[in-house]
């Protein structure tokens, strides 16, 4: 068996030192070693985006990199984005605009949308749709996900949710 490798990763501001097999995917490390189960796995070919986290401030698919590759990096997962009472604007947007149904794609969707807004704070509808092309949702038809991102970017002020 390949030797386990020591890694040190800061996750949501907490430093973790662990021994992992090289083949442990970052998403498996987060879910199974750190019990951060908010990051999900929806496919095995890097399309669905349910596993999206931020690695050194950049959105990546945590199912398509090994935990050893994140050694020395800092990772932010959905658990580190905001919490009840102190939600991130995107979390608020998804809640207000009913941008989720089963909730499974939601963490990845929020992490991906956060990356989009970081680089483009007021995206058009078309930019939002293209910006989220790496995230699948089977429940919402993306209608309210688009609105959630518009809400988070301050583009839906005082508009009713169903108009």
């Amino acid at each position: 068996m390949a030797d386990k490798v020591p890694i040190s990763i800061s996750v949501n501001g907490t430093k973790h030192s662990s021994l992992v097999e090289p083949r442990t995917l970052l998403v498996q490390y987060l879910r199974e070693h750190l019990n951060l189960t908010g990051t999900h796995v929806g496919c095995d070919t890097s399309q669905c985006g349910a596993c999206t986290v931020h690695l050194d401030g950049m959105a990546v698919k945590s199912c398509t990199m090994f935990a050893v590759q994140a050694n020395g990096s800092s990772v932010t997962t959905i658990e580190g984005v905001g919490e009840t009472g102190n939600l991130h604007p995107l979390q608020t947007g998804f809640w207000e605009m009913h941008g989720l149904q089963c909730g499974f794609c939601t963490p990845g969707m929020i992490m991906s949308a956060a990356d989009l807004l970081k680089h483009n704070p007021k995206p058009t509808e078309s930019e939002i749709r293209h910006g989220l092309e790496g995230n699948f949702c089977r429940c919402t038809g993306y209608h309210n996900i688009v609105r959630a991102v518009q809400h988070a970017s301050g583009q839906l002020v005082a508009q009713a949710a169903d108009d």
Partner: protein
Amino acid sequence: MYTAEFDYHKVSSVADALAALAANPDAKLLAGGHSLIPTMKLRLAAPSALIDVSQIEGLKGIRLEGETIVIGAMTTHREIEHSSLLKEKCRILPEQAALIGDPMVRNKGTIGGALAHADPAADYPASMLALGASMKIESSSGARVVSADNFFLGMFQTAVQEGEMLTEIHIPANTLGSAYEKFAHPASRYAIVGVAVVKHAGGNTRAAVTGAGASAMRLTKLEAGASSGLVDAADLLSDHVASAEYRAHLVDVMARKALARV
């Protein structure tokens, strides 16, 4: 979900990478990993070791050296997409990078990884051929530079030999205009047909297509002035998504669109 077991070597220089390659002949170089890791997860590939070259500082970045733009092999698609140097001097590359995969793929994927993998439906090979780019390939015995025309040898096959690695991409900085038009696979969003057209300083136009055939190829008829019938369907791939005949038609359509924007 798990790959087979492998040893992991992270290297910080080309020399270290080449040494590690020599020590592990069965090893694979790991760059952005977006082609390799899914293949390993499906256990279609099981290298005994991965040599992580993605963090080699010397292989990152885009710089101008005289009349040549030098792109480090580990430069990500995102860096290419947002490079102001490329936007000014070689807009086809940022344009193309923006069409690769999705934002997360672009954040990790690298130009060197994409070129060395030589997926027949990858985007860059078309622009490399049209730009007349060349690739710097290094091994323990030294470096050599291979023109794009001699780099892509077939499906998943390049001029990079065992024990070698692609380190730099050299692009002429004095091209006069360029454009890329892609007809994407609806599911994978790889190119079914992607046509790159570049107008060069001497007034000549070079063009190439990716996705349509087993590997990217020059569109010599277009370069000679033809506007349709640019490729022979007999030379193209054919599958349930796009027949060879349809791909041949798309080459004409995409070429027309690209030419209009050069």
